[in-house]
């Protein structure tokens, strides 16, 4: 379990992380979401004791990370994939890491095998693509067979096959009972892998909830109803106090009622329905909605649209 309590990190006058509190629970994949520059990487670095919080406290399993002599046995982290001496081979990189934590060298070859880098184990890591570096970073994180894994943007630079592989890996690591804390700026990615989400923007906590709850919290859900007597139905629903937005000639978007309620109203008035469905906001929309005010760099929509056209 990772626990952050009132964590703030200032760099000069900039506040990178602002009074952040959250809990990452055991045996789940917890997604750590936020736009670029939201403070995700800073928080990750503070969890593993590389950066010291200006105030507040972070513990893993009840004690600070730096209390450990051989932390790789308990916590594995992928922070920056390219942060490796380019002249050293993948295998030698893992070997010194293993040496420092009393891990056997046969384990090095095991994890290289596991991430599919055995054939390039002796190549200098400077020649690796970003995707290969990510795999090496994941191998380093798994080296000590840790209970807790921290992965900062692990799918960055991976091809679709690699992304698929990371997704499966995260799920299987969690199913083995490990705690997985994975950051991303891509909501769609997290929708597929995470059980729970911690969303931050500009260093502040925006949401700490399950994937379903995040969607519900971010935007109201709607009911879509299609009927040849749409106008009459709209009047009845409005009379009941809910909001109705006409969509085209015969469709309505109803806010504030469930499908069931709309069905009852329609049948009471003998109105024919062609379609009655619940419209859920996508995770992506929910994320955009939540972080709209906190994105560090907002593109001017007019310029963006113009450049596409």
């Amino acid at each position, binding site marked *: 379990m990772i626990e952050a309590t009132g964590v703030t990190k200032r760099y000069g006058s900039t506040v990178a992380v602002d009074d952040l509190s959250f809990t990452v629970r055991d045996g789940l994949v917890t997604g750590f979401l936020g736009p670029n520059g939201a403070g995700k990487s800073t928080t990750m670095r503070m969890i593993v004791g590389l950066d010291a919080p200006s105030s507040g406290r972070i513990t893993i399993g009840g004690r600070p990370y730096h209390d450990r002599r051989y932390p790789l046995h308990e916590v594995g982290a992928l922070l920056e994939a390219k942060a490796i001496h380019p002249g050293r081979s993948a295998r030698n990189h893992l070997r010194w890491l293993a040496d420092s934590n*009393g891990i056997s060298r046969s384990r090095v070859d095991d994890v290289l095998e596991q991430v599919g880098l055995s054939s390039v184990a002796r190549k200098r890591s400077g020649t690796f693509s970003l995707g290969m570096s990510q795999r090496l970073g994941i191998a380093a994180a798994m080296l000590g067979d840790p209970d807790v894994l921290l992965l900062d943007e692990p799918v960055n630079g991976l091809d679709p096959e690699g992304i698929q592989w990371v997704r499966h890996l995260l799920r299987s690591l969690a199913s083995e009972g490990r705690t997985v804390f994975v950051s991303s700026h891509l909501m769609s990615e997290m929708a597929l892998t995470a059980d729970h989400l911690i969303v931050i923007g500009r260093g502040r906590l925006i949401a700490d909830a399950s994937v379903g709850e995040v969607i519900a919290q971010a935007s109201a859900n709607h009911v879509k109803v299609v009927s040849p007597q749409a106008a009459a139905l709209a009047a009845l629903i409005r009379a009941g106090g809910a909001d109705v937005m006409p969509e085209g000639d015969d469709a309505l978007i109803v806010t504030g009622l469930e499908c069931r309620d709309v069905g009852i109203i329609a049948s009471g008035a003998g109105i024919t329905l062609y379609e009655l469905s619940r419209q859920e906001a996508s995770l992506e929309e929910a994320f955009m909605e939540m972080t709209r005010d906190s994105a560090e760099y907002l593109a001017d929509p007019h310029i963006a649209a113009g450049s596409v056209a």
Partner: protein
Amino acid sequence: MTATDAAVAPARIRSLPQPSPTSQFVALLRAEWTKLRSVRSTMWSLLVTVAIIVGLGALFCAARVARADRLGPDELRNFDPTGFSLNGIFLAQLAIGVLGVLVMTSEYATGQIRATFGATPQRRLVLTAKLVVFMVVAFVVGLVACFAAFFIGQAILSAKFHQAGLGDPGVLRAVVGGAIYLAVLGALGIGLGTILRRTAGAIAALVGLLLILPILVNFLPSPWSTDIGKFLPLQAGNAVFHVGGRSSTDLSLWVGFTVFCAYAVVAVVLGAVLLKRRDA
């Protein structure tokens, strides 16, 4: 809490054996040794160090033999064949010093320092392990080079001069002293690298301290130039690989060597203080 949140998987069975907490320093020595020998630049820098000490020493000695008949009586009386054959150290110290700097700054430049301190939060222990490993390597390589330079140098000098033997007073101390000098210089490099974190800045500081500062101090009016000059690292430390030949204005051999070591100690201690305080 939703259904997925509640479904916590059963506790895992751990497969890797836990190392003993008392052997952490040994583990770190092993890790730093693996790091040092797994990049090519280490091998090249050490080979260059040996080549300079042996090659330059032989060249100096050959030149001395060629000019032997034109030397004045003072030059002949004060001639130190041991120290002369080890003069390559004056250039080779830069290779060792720069390699020491890189031991630290290459980790900062690549970002690997985060992996290092992530794997071992006891940062000062990591610094100590780096120092021990690098100083031992510098000492051993220096020792091989100094003995080789001494024997080759004496063989060349014997054509015209009385050659020094290892049994003569101060000679063995000077040859081993050359290796110790290089090891301490490596520590100075690591210390500067830890303080400054940037390769260019740390190398500039090293070269400034060893080579530029003496030139600047030389411009001061005497007696300041000699009073201050004798405390500079190179002037204070080089007596350890020479036999005799100290002028009255110089610090005595061991006082000078202590001053030389003090530079390395101050740099390392300052680095250790900053290391703990700063974000990695």
